[in-house]
Structure formats: C-alpha cells, structure tokens
C-alpha cells in the first residue's frame, strides 16, 4: 500500500509497522512489473504447496482409521461441506469445490502470514479484491443464468409493504454493489490491522536496551501484549477465512433462490 520507504533511514531498532507489507522483488532490485516474482508470489506459492501437502499427500492413504494428517484434511472437508449445505441448501453443494478452494487458500495464507518474517498475502487488497470480484461476478452471472431476469427480484422484497419497496430496492441495489468492496476489505483490513498492531508492540519491546528505567516496565508489558495479540490473530485468521467462505455461501444462496 505505502510506496514510501519507511524506517530505512533511521538506524537501529526503529522500523515502521507497515514495512512488513511491502512488495519487493525476490531476485535483484528494480521496479515491480506484473510479471516480477515478488515475495507475494513466493508466499502464495507456499500456501498452494501447504494446501497440496495437507489435502493431497496427507489424505492419500485413504485409511479407514485416519492418520493425523488425513484427519486434518477430513475435518476441513467436512467442516466446509456442512457449512455449504447448511447455508446454501442442497443445490448449492455443486459449488462446494470453489468455496473449499477459497477457504483453504485464505486460511493457509493467513496462518503462513503469522510466521515471523513471513509475508501475509491476504493483507493486500489487490489479492483479496481479485477473490471478492471473482465471487461477485460468478454469483451475478450465475443468478442470471439460473433465474433469467427473475434474479432481479432479489432487489424487490415482496414481503415488505408496497410503499416501502422502492426505497428498500434502492438500499438493496446499493448494498449489492458494495458487496465486493466490503468482502475484500474485511479480510485485508483484518489481516493488515492485526499484523500492524503486533509490529507496533514489537517496536516497544526492546525499550529496555535503551533505558532501563521505563524499559523494565514497558518491555515485559509489550512482550505480553505481543503474545496476546498473536493468540487473537490465530483466532482472527481462522474466523476471517470462515467469514469469507460463509459470505460467499450467502451470496450464492441469493443467486440460487432470489425470492425472499
């Protein structure tokens, strides 16, 4: 996001909390073109690799009594399958592979981003906006293909009083087109904010090296705060991936059954 080079001019322990989100070329220096292999590319590739190891290699045994890695894959599969079935209904199960792909990519990218020195790909709106726009376009096209122009009845709430319906239709249209924005920024904002907060506390942690007076109070407190925020971030990483997947299911349900 920020293109300026923060914190590099100052020496020592000073760093900018947003530095961790900088996209830099992996090999050599130079401008970042669309084809440049950057750290974002590396960590997205690593996410795919981890998903492959968990879901393909881990579940390869097909054992009746699952091994540890197989049970992780089975838990993830069963969890998402049940969610799609509950929220979207029986006919939404056909789109389960897409939602499973989205969920696994986001949850693994979030968890990999929690590793120290890692790059969080999902903290970039460029990454999440592509996923959200893909969901938005797919759901809109699917709604028109499945229902024809009857899909427009998603904006016309027939259970509301007739006087209110035009106003509600306006609100519904606006909220429909805000969906990709809120869908993408929710994930990116959560990941970015959490990581930035950890880095802000990390900047306070080495204060004991500078002044032993106030440092003796601030350093343990900030290390405690980093630990607490990290635990919260582990939770948030999972919940945000879950929320992204469940909102995709909700949008899918609207496309399949537009009549309220």
């Amino acid at each position, binding site marked *: 996001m920020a293109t300026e080079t923060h914190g590099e001019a100052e020496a020592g322990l000073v760093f900018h909390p947003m530095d961790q989100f900088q996209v830099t070329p992996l090999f050599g220096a130079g401008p970042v073109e669309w084809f440049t292999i950057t750290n974002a590319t590396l960590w997205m590739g690593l996410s795919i690799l981890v998903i492959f190891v968990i879901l393909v290699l881990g579940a390869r045994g097909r054992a009746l009594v699952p091994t540890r890695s197989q049970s992780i894959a089975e838990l993830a599969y069963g969890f998402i399958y049940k*969610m799609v079935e509950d929220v979207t209904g029986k006919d939404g199960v056909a789109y389960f592979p897409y939602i499973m792909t989205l969920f696994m990519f986001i949850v693994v990218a979030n968890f990999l981003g929690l590793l120290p020195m890692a790059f969080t790909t999902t903290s970039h709106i460029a990454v999440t906006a592509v996923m959200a726009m893909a969901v938005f376009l797919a759901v809109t096209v699917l709604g028109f293909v499945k229902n024809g122009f009857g899909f427009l009845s998603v904006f016309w709430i027939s259970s509301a009083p007739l006087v209110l319906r035009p106003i509600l239709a306006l609100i519904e249209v606006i909220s429909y087109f805000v969906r990709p924005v809120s869908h993408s*920024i*929710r994930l990116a904002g*959560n990941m970015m904010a959490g990581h930035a907060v950890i880095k802000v506390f990390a900047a306070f942690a080495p204060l004991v090296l500078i002044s032993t007076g106030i440092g003796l109070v601030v350093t343990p407190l900030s290390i405690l705060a980093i630990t607490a925020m990290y635990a919260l971030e582990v939770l948030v990483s999972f*919940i945000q991936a879950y*929320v992204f997947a*469940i909102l995709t299911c*909700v949008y899918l349900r609207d496309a399949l059954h537009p009549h309220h």
Partner: protein
Amino acid sequence: MTGDIVQMGAYIGAGLACTGMGGAAVGVGHVVGNFISGALRNPSAAGGQTATMFIGIAFAEALGIFSFLVALLLMFAV
C-alpha cells in the same frame, strides 16, 4: 513544527475516522451478547445458529472496517 496544513488535516481526519471502529465494536458486542443470551435460554438450538451469528458479526464489522479504510486512505493516499 514542519509540514503543511493539508497533512495535518489528513492526520486529524485519520484519527477521527478511527472513532468509527468504536461503533463496530458496539455492534459486534451486541450481536454476540444477544447470541449468548439466546443460546443460554435454548442451548439445543444454539449450535445451528453459529453461522448466522458469524454473518451478523461480519456485517457489523464491515462498517468499522470502512472507517479503517478511510483512515488508511487519509494516511497514505491523500
């Protein structure tokens, strides 16, 4: 005292935009609090409604994240 008045306004605006997060906090707390109070009255029905709770949280939280976005835009884009 360096910098121009536009940057000062942007920073003040970014700080003010962050007050919107308090609204999101109230909203999320309201959703979860009501879910818990309902779940304690009828624990057998609670399991099936967890997904609905998360959808409600997501919608309440989206508006707080918009204020965060405004703050970021003021800090880095304006």
